[in-house]
């Protein structure tokens, strides 16, 4: 607790000088990460770091609709797929492999277009939320999300079973983001900006309206909040995150996209990140994304032999940990963070009242 408090004190003192200072410091600290990973471990971990950044974007986006606004959606991975495939198809050269579509757009036009298309898809995924709640909404969105994946899997123009290949890498001038290390700077920047904007939303009237809807829909409507409008807005905002993550995933080296990246298992992994993170807490979601992505990566090849037959235990482990989390840690990591922050505020207020003696007593 002592170290955490002094770190928090330090961040507070930075934030007092300028609001953006802690963010810039975090950014600066993350800059040398690929070199540290490559020197201490291996290149592969940079690829993992990139995927973690994408998962952070996804988890932070899902947190807006599920955590802030309380709408249970299981279709988020479908939005991720839409963002990825749209950007890939727009950027691919016409007449590619296996009948894949290609429009040959510049990548910096393809990515924003993919984000817009995904935002619109998010609106459609959100429509059931006007009438449905809880498990019924989950079922409806699950259907939408999974049908997107199946549509991609059976449409040769979108890659079908072979997937989309040779998706071009983005470049600025003559600098091409075609290696794990260079791409890291792209996705890491996107993740930091995504987290920052997630806080901006949370701390505005928009975020308060989302939370009011989560806590009590009827009270929210009587308080003058247009519930339908704000629910749909939450879906659209989270779709923007998913679309950006998807587009960045499509152009990530090695520039290959397959519908197996968008299965229900991926969705459960994503949900696990948000649940472990603590629903509604941004930093919790980020930590959840990091922890689960690493765990997912490290357990993916874990095979257990039963009577000489291999059994892949990862899905079992993930399913079980989800159940245990919901039972024994319903507030997740975010619950600890919130308790910690509240204790600090309480101590600070007491110090103001008593003149600096509260910490000792």
């Amino acid at each position, binding site marked *: 607790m002592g170290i955490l408090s002094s770190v928090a004190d330090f961040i507070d003192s930075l934030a007092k000088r300028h609001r953006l200072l802690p963010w810039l410091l975090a950014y600066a600290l993350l800059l040398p990460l690929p070199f540290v990973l490559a020197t201490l471990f291996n290149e592969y971990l940079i690829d993992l770091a990139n995927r973690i950044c994408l998962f952070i974007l996804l988890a932070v986006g899902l947190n807006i609709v599920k955590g802030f606004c309380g709408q249970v959606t299981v279709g988020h991975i479908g939005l991720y797929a839409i963002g990825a495939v749209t950007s890939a198809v727009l950027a691919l050269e016409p007449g590619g492999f296996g009948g894949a579509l290609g429009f040959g757009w510049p990548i910096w036009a393809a990515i924003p277009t993919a984000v817009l298309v995904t935002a619109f898809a998010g609106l459609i995924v959100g429509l059931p939320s006007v009438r449905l709640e809880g498990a019924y909404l989950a079922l409806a969105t699950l259907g939408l999300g999974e049908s997107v994946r199946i549509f991609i899997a059976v449409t040769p123009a979108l890659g079908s079973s072979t997937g989309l290949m040779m998706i071009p890498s983005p470049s600025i001038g003559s600098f091409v983001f075609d290696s794990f290390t260079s791409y890291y700077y792209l996705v890491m920047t996107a993740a930091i900006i995504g987290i920052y*904007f997630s806080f*901006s*939303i949370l*701390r*505005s*009237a*928009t*975020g*308060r*309206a989302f*939370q*009011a809807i989560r*806590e*009590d829909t*009827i*009270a*929210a*409507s*009587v*308080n*003058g*909040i*247009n*519930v339908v*409008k*704000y629910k749909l*807005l939450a879906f659209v905002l989270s779709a923007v995150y998913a679309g950006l993550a998807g587009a960045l995933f499509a152009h990530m080296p090695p520039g290959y996209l397959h519908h197996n990246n968008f299965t229900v298992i991926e969705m459960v992994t994503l949900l696990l990140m948000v649940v472990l993170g603590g629903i*509604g807490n941004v930093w919790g979601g980020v930590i959840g994304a990091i922890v689960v992505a690493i765990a997912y990566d490290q357990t993916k090849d874990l095979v257990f032999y039963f009577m000489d037959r291999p059994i892949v235990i990862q899905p079992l482990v993930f399913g079980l940990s989800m159940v245990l989390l919901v039972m024994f840690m319903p507030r997740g990591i975010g619950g600890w963070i919130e308790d910690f922050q*509240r204790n600090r*505020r309480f101590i600070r207020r007491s110090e103001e009242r008593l003149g600096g003696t509260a910490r000792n007593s």
Partner: protein
Amino acid sequence: MALLETRNLSKSFGGLQAINDVSLKVEPNTVHGLIGPNGSGKSTFFNLLTGVYQPDEGSYIEFDNVDVTGKPAHYIAGQGLSRTFQLLRLYGELSVLDNVLVGYHPHTKYSPFAPFFNGAEVRRQDQIVKEEMFELLEFIGLAEHAEIPAAELSGGQRRLLALGRAIAMRPKMLLLDEPGAGLSPVNVDSLMDTIMTLKDRYNLTIVVVEHILKVVMSTCETISVLDHGQKISEGTPEFVKNDPAVIEAYLGREMADEDIRAAMDA
């Protein structure tokens, strides 16, 4: 000119006629009481006024010279009609300050997308609003609990917060659904004092549903009585108290001596 007027307001749930043809006027700057036995339709009446329920065909509701019949709840709230709930419906996980900030929502001047494009303006406006809401919290005596979640307040404090959240909207009219439910007589008195001070301070018109007749009798200028979804009486507290129809609704029909004897013999 009445601030609120209903004409032939009706609502049925399947076969049950919850509100039947109620016409009512509330004058500005008054305290109007609404009483009636359990199940007489008082809460349904509030839900109709605030758009939580949609009224039946042929009903008409006018608030501040605007036809609000069948309009959604957020639209009616935007016209300046605020309410509390019998079961409070606070945002339990949000802080006390955030609860009243949500109450202020209809007056938010920036667009929902502003946090993306104009964060500085959002922070500037929110700072002003927060100071204003802090004053309100100080007035109702919750300022020192501003940062704790609403769910952790005591019962009495929660009632005050529900009141504060409704006031934060700066309404023209405030509907109070059993503000004194579950409070001790002493606390009810002090709550009513707070409400009356708020009324003067914010220039409110108040409609209050209450079971504790003492409260209604001492504070209301006019009282309307509902029974089985119909308005059975209306007038000054003195008039309503002595109206045979009201006494019958509350205490039941007086039985003639021979009827009682017959009932006992059977």
